[in-house]
């Protein structure tokens, strides 16, 4: 972790986030942005390993920054930083390609620990998000059966991935689930990354489907 982009409109929180990032990775080069446009410029200009993005920006949503980063710098880790664990904001961010999310109200040491885990490739997954992902794929599967039957990029979860999600939704932690399956934490983390990737693909498939239905694109 060499360079981080911090996108946050409140200066106090920006400073505090910079502190958290430096605690996790001491030799970090920090770039900050207070607005969506500014952040998009940074993404186009500079290379980042990590991005901490607030969703509510004065000139738009941080989701656009997450999307741009996911598109232009696939190796970077876009992390959403938000006030509440309100999955109505988080879920679209995950669909746009966010690797994880941090809740601002958590104590500083918890945040640092989460950042370190994410840097090691272990994405966070909370029960509300797991419930949403399950519901998303259940709906998508139904819709795909009727409308998307012939499309190549039909996205479905594997049985193991569904199992993991169900256990997370019931409140089990990743180490607990790894123990229950007799697998390493690393393998479980891989499953979750795969689920995020499918979430991102399936949301794009859905967008294509929607566009085709409105006659914008020839399917």
């Amino acid at each position: 972790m060499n360079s981080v982009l911090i996108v946050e409109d409140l200066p106090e929180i920006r400073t505090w986030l910079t502190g958290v990032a430096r605690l996790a990775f001491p030799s970090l080069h920090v770039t900050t942005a207070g607005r969506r446009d500014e952040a998009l410029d940074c993404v186009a200009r500079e290379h980042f390993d990590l991005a901490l993005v607030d969703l509510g920006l004065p000139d738009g949503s941080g989701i656009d920054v997450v999307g741009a980063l996911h598109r232009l710098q696939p190796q970077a880790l876009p992390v959403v930083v938000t006030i509440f664990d309100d999955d109505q904001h988080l879920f679209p961010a995950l669909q746009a390609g966010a690797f994880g999310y941090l809740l601002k109200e958590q104590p500083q040491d918890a945040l640092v620990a989460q950042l370190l885990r994410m840097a090691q490739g272990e994405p966070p997954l909370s029960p509300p998000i797991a419930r949403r992902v399950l519901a998303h794929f259940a709906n998508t599967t139904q819709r795909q059966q009727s409308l998307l039957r012939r499309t190549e990029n039909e996205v479905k979860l594997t049985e193991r991935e569904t199992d993991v999600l169900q256990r997370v939704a019931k409140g089990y932690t990743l180490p607990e689930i790894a123990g229950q399956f007799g697998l390493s934490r690393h393998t479980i983390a891989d499953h979750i990354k795969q689920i995020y990737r499918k979430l991102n693909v399936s949301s794009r498939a859905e967008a294509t489907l929607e566009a085709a239905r409105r006659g914008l694109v020839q399917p």
Partner: protein
Amino acid sequence: MLTCLRRIVAVLLCLAVWPAWSAVIELQQAQASLHAGAQGPAVPVTLPHDWQDSFPGHSGVVSYRLQLPVPTDRGLLGVYIPRVCSNVEVFLNGELIGSGGRMHEPVTRNCYHPQLFSLPHALLRTKGNELRLEVAGFATREVAARQRAAGLSAVLVGPMQELQPQYMRQLFWNVTVAQIIAATIGMLGAAILGLAAVRRKDTYLLYFGLFTVGWALIGTRLFVRVVPLDNWLTEVLICSSFAPVLACAYLFLLRLVEERHAWLDRLLWFQALLVPVALLLVGHNHMLRAASVVYNVLAVEFVLCVTVFCITAWKHYRREFWLMSGVLALAVLLAAIEIALQNDWLPLPRVHVIHFAMPLVFTVIGIRLIQMFVHALGVAETVNEQLERRVAQKSSEIEHGYAELAALREREAARQERYRIAADLHDDLGARLLAIAQTAPSDAVASMAREALDEMRLSVRGMTGEAARAIDVLADWRAETVSRLAAAGFEADWDAQEPSRRLILPSRTHVQLTRVLREAVSNVIRHSGGRRCHVRVAFEPPGLCLTIEDDGQGLPAGPRPATGHGLPNIERRVRKLEGTQVFSTSALGGARLQVCVPLETTPSSANMPSHELRPDR
């Protein structure tokens, strides 16, 4: 007795002898001559007489002289000729006493029309009466049907009152019946054409209508006597008219069993054009032969067509098969008789069966078609009624749906507005409170900021109206508590009763209990100094009990725990929920906190049976 018997016999004899003239006599002997007025040489002939026998190939006039016995009857006398073709003029002792019409082209066509004239007494001599019949006609080879070849039947002479009924009878069967039939089937055809006009898709109706009307028009040849065309053209016209009319019949039969072939249609109409051209080209003298060829070809086509119809109907339309094939068998029989007559394999009858049997065929088919039409109409009406009912039902559904939609849109607008306010609170108020909480120099300020944040979150939750299912809340609590304890190096022991899937936690209870649990766990991590933490959640009517205990050093001595342990906060929150909290010593050795709060009956759980609130383990 004997005299009486003799008298009766005498009367009977009288009655038997008297009618030499009182009864009708049939004249069968005549002298025929090719010269008008019987001036030239004559040959003796027997009546009925066909010109073909004595004067083959002759067209024009033949003069017949018949000897008339002396009449004794003083009543009204008449001469009755059942058949004379084409026309006749009758002379008694050289004086014209009756005429059937024109004797020159266009000759009046009386072949199917019997003739009856009265014999004036004034012209009758006491002996040597002569009846002369001038007959105009055409050679067999010049007519299209043998019925219209020139000839004269036996001539009947007698009292008018006896001849009249015979004449009337013959006229009725030959002419009146033909008129009735032509009118009837003409009207049937018109009715079917009317149906065809409204049922464009059912082309078989159109063809049957055309066939019927065409047949009625052909039928007029039996009673239309004056035609403004000479005999040859009239014969060509009659013979040619069969081709298009029968083409309609074939097309009707094939359409009825859904056999459609464009090439066949074209072929039939081409044939209809070809026939008159060919007849005009072969000329006068080969009319009968050419016409016979035409009739034979048409008959063969008819038989083929009926065969195809029967096979297809047997395979696919079994219900139509029996009636139609019966009727068609009759039609084929009639066609065979006609062909036999045309080709001189059978003698000419006095009455033509085909004239009476064809209407039967038409009537049966027509009734069946109308029955089919009426059935289809009935089905259509039923479908229509069902459709109307469905339309009514759908429109009421749509109206209902529209009202619902309007209400929904209103609710949606309100919801959007609440979300907007909530988002504003999050982004502005929440962010600033959070900044204070995270960056405050003192714990007291940070704690106040967090409480304010909680209150704000509660209002926002209330506004966005998202009630949480107890089962989901437990999962969230478990995830947070277990990972926090694990991160702090504690051994976590989570034990929660599974709540009913439908149990909803009120927002206030949800937020406050989350905070209570979080602070209690914080206390364990920061102050207990133990290694194990046991969290228990139980749904015990009428509420929920949360127990947190550890194996640490226990509660500090003194009446109240020190500030900073978060305990006053817990107390305040529990009071807001009208619950109770108990601090005690745990069996594990450390502190034990038990919080019990009542669960109010929320609207979504109001109609649940009371046991639903219990854990259903």
